[in-house]
């Protein structure tokens, strides 16, 4: 067309072909389910099953955090929303005798509602301002949980929370809980995947890339940011409730700022550009400190160091390794 437009970069790699891709993915899901069915039996002892359970729940947290991140906002109160859901569900079942399977759902809805209310007010802040407010909100949650003795039992926390029972099956034992955690994780994963390719997902991604232009495309950016924040935080609330009914004990220490940072670390280390990164990050980082238990103190240092190292050397996270390798080996395509 003209002189300056001569350098045109190579096209982006072709992404998913929708119909056939769907079947491949369904096949993958089925394979994962079959594999999961045998997992508890194959793991050497209950400790490993426990770690698998924690990893699945971490996956739920990391995925839900990714949903919020996908509109370009970083939440530092993700653990607080998990805690909100946990306390809500635990109190419902302890005080009112609501069956845990139901209180779990209520906890999710309650957390999502709280997040929507908070989000409607704070989401007009962008970048670091938003991060700072979510940080402060997390601190408020911790203070409240510690000091509202009548309801939360303060630093002592809530004990003997009922395990989840569904159709007469108790998901209290570790190896039974695994199936529930796996089902919840898969549900979150499939939901996130469907969401990311839905009209909402397109709106989220537009906002993340260029919020002003997104607004100019007729996308109600304020509304979609609240939606993403509410969905992400609501799922975190369910995850927190799962923990409450699994460990059967919660305290303000279960859901601190450091947990929020840990979820962000999973996102960063796994890769932020697509939701698979959250899964990879959770799968990589959750078992790590458990196996480093012998080196008291060292586990957190390694956690932090890995995060900085990944940021420094692999900004795209672990999921970018294949493409980075391809580039390094001179494929160029």
């Amino acid at each position: 067309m003209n002189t300056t437009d001569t350098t045109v970069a190579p096209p982006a790699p072709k992404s998913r072909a929708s119909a056939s891709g769907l079947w491949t993915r369904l096949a993958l899901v089925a394979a994962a389910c079959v594999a999961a069915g045998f997992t508890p039996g194959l793991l050497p002892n209950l400790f490993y099953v426990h770690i698998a359970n924690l990893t699945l729940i971490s996956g739920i947290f990391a995925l839900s955090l990714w949903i919020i991140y996908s509109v370009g906002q970083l939440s530092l109160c993700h653990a607080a929303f998990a805690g909100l859901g946990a306390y809500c569900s635990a109190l419902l079942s302890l005080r009112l005798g609501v069956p845990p399977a139901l209180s779990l759902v209520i906890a999710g809805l309650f957390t999502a509602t709280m997040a929507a209310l908070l989000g409607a007010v704070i989401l007009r802040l962008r970048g670091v301002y938003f991060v700072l407010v979510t940080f402060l909100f997390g601190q408020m949650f911790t203070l409240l949980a510690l000091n509202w003795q009548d309801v939360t039992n303060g630093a002592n926390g809530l004990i003997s929370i009922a395990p989840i029972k569904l159709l007469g099956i108790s998901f209290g034992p570790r190896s039974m809980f695994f199936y529930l955690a796996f089902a919840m994780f898969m549900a979150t994963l499939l939901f996130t995947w469907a969401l990311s390719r839905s009209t909402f997902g397109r709106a989220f991604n537009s906002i993340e890339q260029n919020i002003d232009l997104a607004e100019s495309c007729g996308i109600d950016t304020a509304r979609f940011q609240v939606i993403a924040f509410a969905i992400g935080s609501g799922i975190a609330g369910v995850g927190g409730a799962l923990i409450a009914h699994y460990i059967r004990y919660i305290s303000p220490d279960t859901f601190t700022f450091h947990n929020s940072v840990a979820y962000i670390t999973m996102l960063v280390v796994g890769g932020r550009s697509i939701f698979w990164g959250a899964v990879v990050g959770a799968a990589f980082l959750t078992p790590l400190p458990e196996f480093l238990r012998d080196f008291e103190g060292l586990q957190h240092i390694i956690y932090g160091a890995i995060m900085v190292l990944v940021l420094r050397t692999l900004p795209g996270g672990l999921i970018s390794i294949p493409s980075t390798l391809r580039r390094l080996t001179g494929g160029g395509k």
Partner: protein
Amino acid sequence: MDMMTLLIQAGVNGLVIGTMYALMAIGFTLVFGIMRVVNFAHGEFYMIGSFIAFFTYAQWQLPFVVTILAAVLLVGVVGALVEWALIRPLRGDELTGMIATLGISVVIQNTALMYFGASPRPMPDVISGLVRVGPAVFSWSRIFVIIAAALVIGAFWLFMQKSRTGRAMRAVAQDREAALIQGIDVEKIFPLAFGISVALAAVAGAMMAPVFSVSPFVGVTPMLKAFIVVILGGLGSIPGAVLGGLLLGMIESFGATLLGAMVADMLQLALVIAILLVRPSGLMGRKEA
């Protein structure tokens, strides 16, 4: 004790923590203003400062002046190195830089935990004795903290106003492009600003070590307060940090005296969130572009 005494006592306590918050917030806001990085590791440098004070002053019995100098130099150099090695490459994106400081914070805090253990260590006062003002009685050590912190803040202010480097820093904070055009070497300003920023935190840590105790977790609260102060005063505004620090110190001290510590803490957080919503740029901050 009558009400009057209580209030005077609260005022002095408010000044003590207020000047400390101001010291913390100045450094924090300096780094944000110049580098656009929210430093989540700021509190850890406060913690390092208080450990330096513990070892040099309480263990090795060196003069307190040496303690302060050691804190400034050691932490300043380490800070500049951290900026150069870890933050510089990630500065491009506000969120990425901030996440890096989260990682640095975790590493520093847990390293201290591993070496020094979690139990708090008491530290002797720098000056002993009591002052009597009317009905109220204060320890000299508190007055000392106020005066010393005021001196440090004054020195920092002079440095920013009068020295070439200080003026260059302000220029960079105002407009990086324009500063570049004026021939300011931004790449040298960044580690310097980060070093100064965390050195101020270390000074605060060293001076507060006798007031609170020394442990790997002492940096957490001052950092939280620095956040609050900086939001009150406006991210990037140094006068805002000083005023906000004093204001928060007073609110906290009087609030705790009159309403109880827990209510005061909750009120603070609610107040800050409210201010952010009404005036996102803070009480004295510039409008974000």
